[in-house]
Each structure stands twice: as structure tokens, then as C-alpha cells.
């Protein structure tokens, strides 16, 4: 079986991913996309880069998908996270869940997004209009370098 979670440097293609979750018994499909925004906490973002500790990220991500399948009555679930330099509007993360009923599809999709944001070793560095950068969720650095 292919892993239900992976890290990619390529653009994410939701339509192709969704096809892998289709089954004749599934009546509900919930999905989530994280898009690169032009701002964060009041600052104008003009460059952004994700990086990951790939082996552990993929292991932990797959565990999260398995947990979702145990907790909710789900047919299939997949998540892909992109790394590297991204532009405004690019998809950083895609989560899709198919299920016989809509409740399970929504709840599992939300669970997966929340857990991935909390547990998977992926980092985001934003570059702002003033030329400074920040590692999101890390205490500010005294010395900032351009992205």
C-alpha cells in the first residue's frame, strides 16, 4: 500500500489526488487546502518557504492518517504537504477524506489538518516586504537574513 501522507516539492494536484479516494460506497468527500496568503499577523508576506525533516514527517503523517481512520468511519484519506519556495496562492497542504457519511468526512479532515499542524516536523519561513524573515512559531531572531 502506498503511504497516505507524503512530502513533495512539486505543485499539488487536487483533482488527481481526489480520484484516488473515490469508491462506489462513499457518499461524502471533505477536503482542505492550505493556500499561501499575502499576509500573516498584520505583515505583508512576499516570499515563503517550507522545509521538512522528511523521513520523520512522512512517518508521523502516516500515523495521523491511521489515527483518523480508527477514530472516524472513513473510507479513505490522503494528505500531501509541499516544501520548497512557494508563491502566493500556491497550495501548501491538501487533505482529502471520503466516507459513507458527511459527519465522518468533515471530522476526520479537520482532525488530520489539526494534528499535522501540531505534530509533523515541517517548518515555514516567511519573507516580508521590509526584507526581514521569520521562522513561524519560533521566537524572533535578533539577526534576520533575507529569504
Amino acid at each position, binding site marked *: 500500500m502506498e503511504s497516505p501522507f507524503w512530502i513533495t516539492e512539486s505543485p499539488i494536484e487536487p483533482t488527481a489526488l481526489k480520484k484516488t479516494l473515490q469508491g462506489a460506497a462513499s457518499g461524502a468527500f471533505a477536503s482542505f487546502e492550505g493556500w499561501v496568503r499575502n499576509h500573516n499577523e498584520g505583515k505583508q508576506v512576499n516570499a515563503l518557504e517550507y522545509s521538512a525533516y522528511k*523521513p520523520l514527517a512522512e512517518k508521523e503523517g502516516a500515523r495521523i492518517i491511521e489515527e483518523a481512520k480508527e477514530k472516524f468511519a472513513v473510507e479513505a484519506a490522503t494528505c500531501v*504537504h509541499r516544501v520548497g519556495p512557494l508563491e502566493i496562492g500556491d497550495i501548501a497542504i491538501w487533505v482529502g477524506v471520503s466516507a459513507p457519511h458527511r459527519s465522518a468526512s468533515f471530522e476526520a479532515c479537520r482532525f488530520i489538518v489539526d494534528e499535522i499542524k501540531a505534530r509533523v516536523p515541517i517548518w515555514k519561513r516567511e519573507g516580508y516586504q521590509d526584507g526581514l524573515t521569520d521562522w*513561524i512559531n519560533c521566537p524572533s*531572531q535578533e539577526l534576520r537574513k533575507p529569504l
Partner: protein
Amino acid sequence: MKIHVEYYAILKEQRGCSQENLDTDAATPRALYASLKGDHAFTLEDSDLKVAVNEDFASWDDALEEGDTVVFIPPVAGG
């Protein structure tokens, strides 16, 4: 004891490299991080971090063994 360390995100930036081989006396990830933090002026405390040994999450006070690969994990921000 020979330990392989990989650096990611802010630690990679502060260390100025993505990995290195160390010969260290540190018996645990906690002791190893304390030593590296002193050497390289890392701004994160160990309480800000998680640690992985050999590609899985580990405890700060686990015993390190010869040849282990250690990764210190800054606060994550995926999604």
C-alpha cells in the same frame, strides 16, 4: 562516542550547516543539545524543541548510542 546530527529550519540557519558528525561525551540528547547550544548560540531552549533519534521521536533523557542520528525539532509550522 560518534553521533550524527542533522539540523533543520532555524537550527540549520544558526548552525550554518545541515548536518555534522560529532565525537561527544554527551550521554543523552539533553546533554548533547546543551553542549551544542553553548557552542553555537542557538536561541531556542530545549523546552521549545522535540528530539528525534534514528528517525523517530525520542525522549530527552534516553541514552545515546554510538552511531545514533539525532535531530532537534524546532516548533513546527506545517499546513
